[in-house]
């Protein structure tokens, strides 16, 4: 049984790939970054963004999601959806992106909206205003098509719980 399932999975992947190739492919990469303070030889402190390495609870991590249209035709109605990983909290107001409309979900990705307009059940059972910690998904709708060969990125910040 197990062997058959694995075979089926491989077949499915093989089936999808040519379709994407034929139509044009958008590729995604996700990178986690960290802001660190760097002191130069003159004692001047600047902030620098580096790939995440040492991270403990309370630290902030920046997720950068890059997209690139590797196909030969423009990609329309591009929607990037990112489930917020479990043990991190979305930092409200950090998902804004030029050229994109950003929304969030607090119900596991069923519905999306601006965080300030969303509510979740409170401890007393009555709805309360949602906070960054309630966000389950972040979503961006790109306002313009991504031309062939074009690329861009969106980002947001989280705090390790």
């Amino acid at each position, binding site marked *: 049984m197990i062997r058959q399932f*694995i075979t089926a999975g491989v077949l499915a992947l093989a089936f*999808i790939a040519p*379709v*994407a190739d034929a*139509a*044009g*492919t*958008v*590729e*995604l*990469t*996700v*990178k*986690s970054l960290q802001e660190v303070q760097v002191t130069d030889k003159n004692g001047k402190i600047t902030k620098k963004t580096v*790939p*995440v*390495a*040492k*991270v*403990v*609870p*309370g630290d902030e*991590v920046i*997720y950068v*999601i890059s*997209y690139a249209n590797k*196909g030969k*035709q*423009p*990609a*329309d*109605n*591009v*929607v*990037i*959806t*990112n*489930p917020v*990983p*479990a*043990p*991190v909290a979305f930092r409200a107001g950090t998902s804004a992106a030029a050229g994109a409309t950003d929304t969030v979900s607090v119900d596991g990705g069923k519905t999306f909206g601006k965080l300030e307009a969303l509510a979740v059940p409170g401890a007393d059972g009555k709805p309360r205003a949602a906070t960054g*910690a309630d966000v389950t998904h972040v979503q961006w709708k790109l306002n313009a098509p*991504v031309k062939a060969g074009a690329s861009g990125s969106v980002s947001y910040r989280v705090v*390790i*719980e």
Partner: protein
Amino acid sequence: MNSKHFARLGLATALALVMAPSAFAAGTDAGTNITNTATVNYDVGGVSQPPVTNPTPDDFEVDRRILFTVAATDGAESVAPGAQNQALTYVIQNDTNDTVDFYLSVEELTGDDFDGADGGSAAQFYLDDGDGIFNGADTLLPVSPLGKPYLDNVPEYNGVAGNLRTVHVVYDIDTGLANGDTADVYLVADATSNAGADSAIYTESATDGVLVVDTVLGDADGPATNDDARDATHSAMDSYLISSATLAVSKTSVVVTDPFNCATAGDSTSCTGTPKRIPGAVIQYCITVENTGGATAEDVVITDQVPGATTYVNQSIWTNVSGTGTACDLTDTLTAAGNMQPEDDNTVDADALPETDPAGGSFDAGTETVSVQLKPDVAGSGGIARAAFRVTID
């Protein structure tokens, strides 16, 4: 490759399950893998395309942040000189996002009046059983192969009282110490991974690994000599305070009656003139005990030989006598109540046991000695107790 992928999926599921309790957690556990996968949906030429995810999920592991505190639970412990098995009590709270072991040691301050070890025994470390009080239900902490006492597997505190560790440091107190003497003792805790195998104290990782659990030191500076910020060491001070009784005894006398100025011997209200110290006069002795020490003096017994040329007045011993300073009120005008009553149930010899009077007052006719236990116990910081007895001048 496949198995690694499955492992990740399994971990992601496990994380989802523990999500709810982690809302109260001090921090995500060290070693937790945080994986991020995004999806893009798009159309080409008006045709919806299959969603695409980032082929390599972004992931990193949460590092270990060493963070904990040692605290003394209360003020100085009052102890008596020579008292055995006296405990100083400290609480260790582990706010590291990991389960940690702690080596425990003591540092005795210089410049205070005495040391815990002066009593002749090294510090003993006990883990409290949950009541916060040192008693027989507490357990002696284990000792590593190199002889270091340690706390094993201390979980993250996470606001759960049961995750705190209360430790008693126990010494025998030296004898011959004065009231108010103090001994200050630091309890020092060093965080480590496996104390039972004498693992090294945690240090800050020199390199940063993305998929490696690095160690970051976040502990605060503490009072002990070798306890700086971010050194996986923390400490707190508790103190012994010697509390002993310091007693001062004084004795005064007044004339109650004489045969010429008073109608009835021993009845001060029967006098028409001022009684004088002449033969046949009744004298009341007042013995006052003041305790200027810190501790209550219990079971204080006064013995006093009746002066020559006087005769003890039978059943004239009183305890808990009211008065002013070192002077007692006249006992024949007092109303016996509670433990303020005449003692001496045996006018001939030392009282037979068990005593029938509350304070065990007695007169030994052989040695002509008055013996009385002060009632009540003499409180510290200036408590006073008085006893009185009477004699007749021969």
